[in-house]
């Protein structure tokens, strides 16, 4: 007589959240933009920096997105802008994610004083609204792209530290991590083999969501003249150019739409990833016994 039900559940099918239409739209748009970044120069109808006499020209066959206040082709600048904002934001997210989650993991693992210091530091940074602290830092260091990235790094690492710390704290007490330590493995192997694989999922979901914020923050700083300096074709700068000449709606409309579309795409993907990888969801599925 074997009461042990050997009912094994089906192979883990693609979580429902990843197959929803919103996510598909997100993936398509994101892929599109990544393509633009790669093929950039080939797609640009004109030199993004080349000025021409017909300033603020409306949409036309020659200039699909019209021209800006210096007669430059808006479409080419939007494409060129993608090659600046997207890679830079990816770099920023990668940097702040690694710095933040490393600090969070260490705080979670070591606890005690280290934990207090890291968390109070995070609270301090979070005590300032993002743009205002970024402004303070950028102003203190002087307006330039690198300073803007540094300012953004200062502002964005705390959220990763907090999320990673709570995940590590949660994982550290899980029985399989303790069981691993009982087998005599060092804390680093335990981190690498047991803790990180179970923490990486939700942190990755956070990076996708945070990518959108990075784009918004970078373009925001540039809009305020604290990030990229003219004449670089950066979306934030292009919109601020559009503000001076708001009657020519196309100058600001297309870079704005560019920002909106890429941020929306990554938010869709991030939402789906978070639902699929959220430890709460896994736990709910795992311990549903009744």
């Amino acid at each position, binding site marked *: *007589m074997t*009461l042990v*039900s050997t009912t094994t559940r089906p192979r883990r099918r693609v979580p429902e959240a990843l197959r929803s239409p919103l996510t598909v739209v997100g993936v398509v748009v994101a892929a599109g933009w990544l393509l633009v970044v790669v093929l950039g120069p080939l797609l640009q109808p004109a030199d993004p920096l080349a000025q021409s006499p017909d300033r603020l020209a409306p949409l036309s066959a020659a200039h699909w997105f019209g021209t800006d206040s210096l007669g430059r082709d808006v479409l080419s600048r939007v494409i060129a802008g993608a090659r600046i904002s997207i890679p830079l934001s990816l770099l920023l997210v990668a940097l702040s994610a690694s710095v933040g989650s490393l600090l969070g993991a260490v705080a979670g693992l070591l606890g005690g004083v280290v934990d207090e210091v890291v968390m109070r530091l995070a609270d301090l940074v979070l005590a300032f609204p993002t743009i205002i602290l970024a402004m303070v830092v950028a102003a203190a260091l002087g307006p330039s792209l690198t300073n803007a990235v540094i300012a953004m790094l200062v502002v964005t690492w705390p959220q990763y530290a907090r999320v990673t710390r709570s995940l590590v704290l949660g994982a550290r007490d899980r029985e399989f991590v303790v069981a691993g330590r009982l087998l005599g493995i060092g804390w680093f192997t335990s981190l690498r083999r047991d803790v990180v694989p179970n923490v990486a999922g939700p942190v990755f979901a956070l990076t996708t969501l945070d990518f959108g914020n990075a784009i918004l923050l970078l373009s925001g700083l540039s809009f305020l003249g604290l990030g990229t300096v003219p004449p670089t074709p950066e979306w934030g700068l292009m919109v601020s150019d559009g503000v001076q000449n708001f009657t020519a709606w196309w100058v600001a409309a297309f870079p704005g739409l560019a920002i909106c579309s890429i941020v929306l795409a990554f938010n869709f993907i991030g939402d789906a990833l978070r639902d699929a990888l959220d430890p709460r969801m896994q736990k709910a599925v795992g311990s549903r*016994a*009744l």
Partner: protein
Amino acid sequence: MSDADGLRISGLTLELRGQRILDGVDLVAPAGQVTGLAGESGSGKTLTGMTVLGLPPAGSVLGGSIEFRGTDLLTLSARQHNALRGEELAMVFQDPTASLHPMISIGGQLTDHVRHHLHLGRAQARARALEVLEQVRVPDPAQALRKYPHEFSGGQLQRIAIGIAIACRPSVLVADEPTTALDVTVQAGVMRLLRDLCDELGLTVLLITHDLAVMSALADTIVVMRHGRVVEHGPRYDVIRDPQHPYTRDLVEALPDHRPRPTGGRP
């Protein structure tokens, strides 16, 4: 006790996302008796209880009938079923610390449904609450009303949860693993309480648990379920001491006090 005010479930089926989880459940729960619903996890015993209350998971397709006082509960509209819940059909859950709202006082959670169903004023509802707390033997009822769930032990909380369930003098009480989350000494007290309430109030109690020892102490008749179907039912003594169905036999033999003690220590 006429059969009229008990519970008669016949051919109950439940399908969720294409899977048949309840596959024709038949059982009779007469009034004034404790009817035990036994089975392992996933046998559908809790789902049966929830369906009596009209709270099956969203999107489940139901079949068969649940007769209570001449009406088939499955034909009731949501509003009609909701009117019965709390007043005629009540439920107690496994973990009292999870089934009571942490931020609402015991008094609040004891009186809100009483005032709704019995249309009582604040003072009358409070009086009823005190009466119920005495009935479930919670010490110092007046003080208890003002306290919050986190200020009670597990055993006391489960008594309060039972008090909440019987506050409107329901006919049917579905108890889903009521003693499982409790320590053994506290468990005995709650079992005695359920027995007394069943005898004194003529309650129809549907006791759901996987613990055959609790079943043997508390249930008058036992219904054994497996994979959404009833495999055996009968008086407590017969089902435990002389199980007919092989699955029931396996369940009983799997119990500690039925297994042969291993021979001494080292071979």
